[in-house]
């Protein structure tokens, strides 16, 4: 029996799944017993974590992009034709061009997106670095910045949960190099009652903030930004003035998830071990797309994709389940422009980050290039 595998979304998670399946199902792809189709939204693949470095001049724009066709195994039928409706009752997906694609197995990898427009004034009054345009504008703003009040504002939910701390430490070092630290006050705001979701990271960050003189405000969930008065106010009732506001906007899942009636906020209800869309046995969910209570990060996408590859191959070849996902997440943490550390955890194992070192920072810089091997399923 032939198997059609349809991957909806061409970001990191979908790409790893597609390439990993090709590596394991070569003979079946050759005979036509299996076909793999990917519905993407762009012909370009972006290395999203690289955006953190762009405002600091530490990465060149062209390093962030590759042609998606070249990142994908040539045996994947890749189409830039965004999905508009996912019909899991009838095992089919409709697209923008008006086509309908049937499947035997489907992988939902539609990702997440920033929604600054969900908070009044945020789009007009705040900088962000979660897309290319935002990172470029922040680079210009940092170039011109000559001191004043800086607010780094974090909103829930967001992906890459260490990026807000990283950008804070990197800005501190930048201002130090520019000789404007004495004219600058950085304030960091965070939604919950500590400085990071991970308790050991929060504990470490508090020590560093105290040492550097970085102010912080916990329990701060943004209600509005006033671009004219240059103020930001929280649901909890705190207001800060700013000269430069760098925000991590709230995120949502893809519109197609909402439009398909799967979930209002765009996060697909997902089995925490099986990674199957709840209520189905042939639809899998990977990357930011899940509603799982774990970090939305590239490493999460990678580990989920590895699990899903094993399960899909096993289902196709042997008609049986291979293994469960254990909730694993791994994150590098840049602790400045010269040092870094890392943290990993899963559903059972709490995080325990080690001391920052130059070596880990260099490894992160090396990973910035090795990413493409990861997307190809080689790493």
């Amino acid at each position, binding site marked *: 029996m032939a198997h059609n595998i349809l991957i909806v979304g061409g970001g990191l998670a979908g790409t790893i799944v597609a390439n990993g399946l090709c590596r394991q199902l070569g003979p079946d792809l050759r005979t036509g017993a299996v076909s793999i189709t990917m519905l993407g939204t762009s012909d370009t693949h972006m290395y999203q974590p690289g955006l953190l470095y762009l405002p600091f001049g530490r990465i060149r724009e062209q390093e962030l992009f590759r042609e998606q066709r070249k990142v994908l195994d040539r045996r994947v039928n890749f189409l830039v034709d965004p999905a508009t409706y996912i019909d899991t009752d009838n095992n089919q997906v409709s697209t923008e061009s008006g086509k309908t694609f049937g499947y035997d197995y489907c992988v939902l990898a539609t990702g997440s997106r920033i929604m600054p427009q969900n908070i009044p004034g945020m789009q007009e009054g705040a900088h962000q670095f979660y897309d290319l345009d935002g990172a470029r504008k922040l680079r210009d703003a940092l170039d011109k910045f000559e001191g004043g009040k800086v607010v780094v504002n974090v909103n*829930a939910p967001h992906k890459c*949960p260490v990026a807000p701390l990283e950008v804070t430490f990197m800005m501190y070092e930048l201002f130090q190099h520019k000789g404007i630290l004495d004219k600058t006050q950085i304030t960091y705001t965070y939604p919950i009652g500590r400085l990071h979701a991970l308790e050991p990271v929060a504990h470490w960050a508090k020590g560093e903030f105290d040492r550097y003189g970085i102010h912080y405000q916990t*329990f701060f969930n943004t209600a509005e930004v006033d671009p004219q008065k240059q103020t930001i106010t929280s649901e909890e009732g705190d207001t800060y003035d700013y000269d430069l506001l760098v925000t991590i906007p709230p995120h949502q899942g893809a519109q197609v998830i909402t439009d398909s009636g799967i979930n209002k906020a765009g996060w697909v209800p997902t089995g925490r071990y099986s990674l199957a869309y709840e209520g189905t046995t042939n639809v899998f969910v990977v990357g930011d797309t899940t509603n799982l*209570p774990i970090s939305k990060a590239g490493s999460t996408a990678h580990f989920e994709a590895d699990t899903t590859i094993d399960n899909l191959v096993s289902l196709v070849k042997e008609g049986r389940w291979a293994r469960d996902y254990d*909730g694993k997440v791994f994150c590098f943490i840049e602790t400045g422009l010269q040092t870094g550390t890392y943290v990993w*955890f899963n559903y059972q194992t709490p995080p325990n980050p080690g001391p920052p070192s130059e070596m880990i920072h260099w490894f992160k810089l090396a990973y910035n290039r090795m990413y493409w091997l990861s997307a190809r399923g080689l790493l």
Partner: protein
Amino acid sequence: MAERQTIDARGSFCPGPLMELIAAIKNIEVGDEIEVLSSDKGSANDIPAWAKKVGHEVVENNERDDHWSITVRRAK
């Protein structure tokens, strides 16, 4: 009748139960409820602390066998 949804945040170290609640409460109607299941005993304190600060109502806060169940009603 208020609707109630459950977030199973057991075993969630990051973003954690409170962050899950903060993200989810934006998507429910005023008067509806979210039950958060957490294996972190800190949730029994920090979820009510946040709810009080922002003005939402804690409906239940129970310790079960191996986890805590905290239900919050959106008040505004």
